[in-house]
């Protein structure tokens, strides 16, 4: 009862529904219609957005609700290693951790996926074989995305051929910021096609490079129009990554997109989420903005690496009543 009221209330105080009139097919007919549509989206009230994200972050989640939230958050982690120094051994260790995050407590849920570079997909696939853990691969000249379309598509095909269940692409921020929306759109469509039916596509906007909330809203709609299965905040390679405010904005976008088109799109904040407390704040955002339908690892993910250790330590604390320490989780 309370949550239904809260959700209704949330809609009243956030943005009015931002979706355009039905008939979104026309929107992408040409460069100018796409531009007109994206620039016709209502402007974002930055102060209101940040205040709402901050106020939702003050919810107190305790005891059984906390236990539920921690397990849910663990099941939503895309356990990530995207370093130049990644070795097959490290990826295998990561895969083992994704399947059994806490070997001392087999009731701990597995994470959603491991996220690696395309050349490590085969290793990761082998490491998580026999479990429900997916393998996600970044592609399209991650993280800068500064390569020709042919190179990007080859990158994607290689990842998919190696068995990636999910592909995380980066958009061409240069083209987006230059106002060349059709180029960005066409690229996403082409990558989506290269993913085929076997791999879900996550589109990374790199919100830290988009400068304004208005741009994040436009990018969200652009990505969803082009067929993204997930929209993702950032690569984790720039100074500003996922924040509650930009994630809230993207959650509003997927909510409105489903209301307009009936198509549900997932959201993945990535980078900068390091504590269980932060993760739970994001889950509150999801519940209060997009709704319970998104409280599932098919529709919401955390791109993170160190977050998992903190979630596990909090879980141990809840189970034993003793504060845990970094000696009781793996060093990644």
């Amino acid at each position, binding site marked *: 009862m309370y949550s239904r009221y809260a959700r209704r209330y949330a809609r009243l105080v956030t943005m009015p529904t931002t979706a355009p009139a039905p008939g979104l097919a026309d929107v992408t007919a040409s460069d100018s219609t796409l531009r007109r549509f994206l620039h016709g989206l209502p402007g974002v009230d930055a102060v209101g957005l940040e205040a709402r994200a901050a106020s939702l972050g003050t919810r107190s989640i305790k005891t059984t609700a906390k236990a539920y939230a921690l397990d849910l958050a663990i099941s939503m982690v895309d356990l990530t290693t995207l370093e130049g120094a990644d070795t097959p051994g490290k990826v295998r260790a990561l895969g083992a951790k994704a399947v059994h995050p806490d070997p001392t407590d087999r009731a701990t849920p597995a994470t959603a996926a491991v996220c690696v570079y395309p050349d490590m997909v085969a290793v990761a696939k082998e490491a998580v074989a026999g479990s429900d853990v997916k393998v996600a691969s970044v592609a399209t000249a991650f993280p800068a995305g500064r390569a020709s379309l042919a190179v990007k598509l080859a990158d994607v095909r290689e990842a998919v051929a190696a068995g990636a269940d999910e592909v995380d692409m980066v958009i061409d921020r240069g083209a987006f910021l230059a106002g060349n929306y059709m180029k960005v759109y066409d690229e996403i469509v082409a990558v989506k096609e290269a993913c085929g039916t076997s791999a879900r596509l996550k589109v990374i906007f790199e919100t830290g490079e988009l400068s304004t909330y208005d741009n994040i809203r436009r990018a969200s709609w652009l990505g969803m129009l082009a067929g993204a299965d997930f929209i993702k905040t950032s690569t984790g390679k720039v100074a500003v990554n996922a924040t509650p405010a930009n994630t809230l904005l993207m959650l509003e976008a997927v909510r409105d997109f489903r209301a307009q088109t009936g198509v549900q799109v997932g959201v993945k904040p990535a980078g900068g989420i390091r504590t269980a407390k932060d993760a739970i704040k994001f889950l509150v955002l999801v519940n209060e903005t997009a709704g319970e339908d998104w409280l599932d690892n098919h529709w919401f993910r955390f791109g993170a690496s160190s977050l998992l250790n903190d979630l596990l330590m909090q879980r*141990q604390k809840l189970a034993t*009543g*003793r*504060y*845990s*320490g*970094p*000696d*009781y989780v793996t060093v990644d």
Partner: protein
Amino acid sequence: MSDARLSVFKTYKLYVGGKFPRSESGRVYEVSDSKGKWLANAPLSSRKDARDAVVAARKAFGGWSGATAYNRGQILYRIAEMLEGRRDQYVQEVADAEGLSKSKAGVQVDAAIDRWVWYAGWTDKIAQVVGGGNPVAGPFFNLSSPEPTGVVAVLAPQESSFLGLVSVVAPVIATGNTAVVIASEKSPLPALSLGEVLATSDLPGGVVNILSGRTAEIAAPLAAHQDVNAIDLAGADEALAKELEIAAADNLKRVLRPQPVDEWSATPGTERMTAFLETKTVWHPTGSLGASGSSY
């Protein structure tokens, strides 16, 4: 009335991670002098303050234990210098807290300052006393050296609010440990003021963290905390000490049981330092022994 001036009361706060926060819980409790007259409100720390203090202490451990013994000695001596400059304030606080005359409180504070100097001198000598080369029958050197245990939870003595406090904190940090200190429950003010001196003595933030409140309430989560390596039970009564020692067994914490102390001003010896040291022993080959039994 023109010369009347409103009193400026001091807000006593915790000292955690080099900062002076209030208790996370927002609670305070009344501290009164030996005659029951109200002195000030002190923060009533919660277990979450203890948790935050452990995080701060763990973060500071790498830098502090990695600092040279010489550097640690300089900083401990600096604490003594800073205390000397604020001697009058501490004399007043100790006199109020323990119901002593000014002159007796002065003796306590002087002894506390000298205690810092004593341990400042020990920092670069303890390794020579408790470490060393061990004779072995083989082509090896065998060397032992003391290393700090890690994060130490310290329950400061309940009666001696300042000299007792310094006598248990200084030996812990002299050897490179970091400390989470629970001040005397009845008289926490001198301990909370000590934070101000530590903060201005080049002591890195987080090396000493000072909490005030109910000793039993804060000590229980610290004793059970998996990321605390040792606990000094100086300020626990018999029942509490037993309970805490049981809780501390889970991750094999080093436990220093409360010991009867007649007079904190007595020369302390090295026991409080060695209680929180680990001995690292390394074997170093010297090459094969010749016919003479020695290769060098």
